[in-house]
């Protein structure tokens, strides 16, 4: 049991997209009855079977850190939030499928979390546009989750799915679209559950094969590790 090692995954996104409901669904396998504003950060633990079904199966505990707030919060809130971004092993980016702005805000969110370890003067990237190169060489696994899937009318579904497909390409991440009030989307054996499982496996692999004391890879870190070859899904 990986009780000494800590595997930490951040859950980021705008206010009201459904991060708390999502975390509750992932960890308790139950729908959250009365969601309320997240103040600060709320943590939950997911029991994950690493490499399920193989002889090397291991039970791991993955910590999901659900950080509240928005990208335009006051700088005092942002500097306080930054303490939660230490030694992150994976990031789940959550956006609301019914609200385009929440997907646009994912870029500043990921920059805020990933650039925390960069130079003291601030973020290296200047204008916040998508830059595929940066995300391609970024070695923190990302997962994109779109919520409120059930609230999209039938005729708009294709447009929305195309848009999110582009988004996941930009982030070089897998994407899952679901409704946090319905556990059927993450039923065992469904493609969503497989993607989720693969993501957590990736996170745990990175965690185990890194002997380096600094757990987090940021944009400025140019060292390349051997384990990159493991990322051939």
């Amino acid at each position, binding site marked *: 049991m990986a*009780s000494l090692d*800590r595997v930490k995954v951040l859950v980021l996104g*705008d*206010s*009201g997209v459904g991060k708390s409901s999502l975390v509750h669904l992932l*960890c308790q396998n139950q729908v959250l009855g009365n969601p309320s504003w997240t*103040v*600060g*950060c*709320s*943590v*939950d*633990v*997911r*029991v994950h079977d690493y490499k399920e079904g193989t002889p090397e199966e291991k*039970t791991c*505990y993955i*910590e999901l*850190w659900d950080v509240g707030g*928005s990208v*335009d919060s*006051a*700088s*005092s*809130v942002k*500097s*306080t939030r930054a*303490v*939660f971004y*230490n030694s992150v092993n994976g990031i789940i980016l959550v956006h*609301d499928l*019914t*609200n*385009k*702005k*929440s997907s646009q*805000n994912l870029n500043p969110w990921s920059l805020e979390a990933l650039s925390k370890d960069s130079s003291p003067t601030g973020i290296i990237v200047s204008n916040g546009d998508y830059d595929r190169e940066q995300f391609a060489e970024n070695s923190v696994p990302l997962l994109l989750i779109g919520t409120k899937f059930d609230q999209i009318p039938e005729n708009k579904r294709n447009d929305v799915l195309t848009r999110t497909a582009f988004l996941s390409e930009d982030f070089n991440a897998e994407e899952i679209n679901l409704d946090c009030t319905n556990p059927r989307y993450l039923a065992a054996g469904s493609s969503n559950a497989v993607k989720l499982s693969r993501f957590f496996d990736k996170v745990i692999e990175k965690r185990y094969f890194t002997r380096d004391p600094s757990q987090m890879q940021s944009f400025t870190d140019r060292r390349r590790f051997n384990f990159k070859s493991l990322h051939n899904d």
Partner: protein
Amino acid sequence: MSFFVDSVIMFTSQVLFFGFGWLFFMRQLFKDYEVRQYVVQVVFSITFAFSCTMFELIIFEILGVLSSTSRYFHWKLNLYVILLVLIFVVPFYIGYFVVSNIRLLQRQRLLFSCVVWFTFMYFFWKLGDPFPILSPKHGILSIEQLISRVGVIGVTLMALLSGFGAVNCPYTYMSYFLRNVTDSDILALERRLLQTMDMIVSKKKRIAMTRRQMYQRGEEQNKQTGFWGMIKSVTSSPSGSETDLSLIQQEVDALEELSRQLFLETVDLQATKERIEYSKTFQGKYFNFLGYFFSIYCVWKIFMATINIVFDRVGKTDPVTRGIEITVNYLGIQFDVKFWSQHISFILVGIIIVTSIRGLLITLTKFFYAISSSKSSNVIVLVLAQIMGMYFVSSVLLMRMSMPLEYRTIVTEVLGELQFNFYHRWFDVIFLVSALSSILFLYLAHKQAPEKHMTL
């Protein structure tokens, strides 16, 4: 012919204001949300446009632009439209969007929003009873009935905001009130926060592990819910691991509450530290100086409000004329009274208008960011539009006192024979109440914070 030209000018300016309101809505208020219901944006911009047109007409009155008949006509027209919007359109849409959010009532949305609107009208009408705002010669369906009530609500809002603003402004500007915060304080708090989070994590791991073991052993029972579930759970005794679980869960809940408190305290300290740094800059020093100036102004205003209420005094002349009288009579400076009174009142009224619009928009934006969510954003924006409309109508009402006599007549004519003195008195009372309670509130908040700090 000149009437036509005047109308064109008025119309162009209204379109400009509408565009400004539209942009403000898109860029500032709805920055993080998608506008799905354009009705909301249109209603907000219309309210803003017609409110600004009223101010524009006052300025035109002072400067003597446009012919006086067309000014009068546009005044009346504008007033009717804005009353229509504030009393019929906006409340109806507020009711409609509130009802749309409630799933139960979705089917009969229109019906229920009409019901809500009628309730609103009932309370709106009832509002006029305790106040001596009308003289008996006004009929039931006259426009004065509506304006008087809108005026009461708007004046209350203005007085509340201005009382709080008058006290809060020097408190935020002056660095005398800044508590001393060092970097080590912040680091210590952050460390405590992370330690608390670690404790929460380890306890949750234990809960997850225990749950998994119970599940594998087949012990897991579904949580009994409902009435019969409660009765059943009284008779059956929980297993050992279940009692452990509930104990740990209680500890986790307490720790989570603690982590929230620590987070908020850390944010507070960071904000104070930034303000301390800001106060050392040139801008900060300038604002600090302004703060002293404003605190004197605030004390003077409170004093004047008390005097007005106690001695039941009503100001007869406006500050401009009085200022000119003083300069002419006591200082002996002779100048063309008419010419200067026009220009000075224009500048004074202009400043009042601009600062009140800007102040209100900033306050509304802050308020909106604090309380809105993606579900309620439409309702909140409409409520803000309502507040904005009523605020601006009442500021026109109160501004009457700041203008020299010759410009007052048009406002008196257009708004009808309201008991203007009542509104000023009411403003003074609410201002006093608001300012004093803000002082008390800020004093308590300030007192509490250093004590919390000491116990770290």
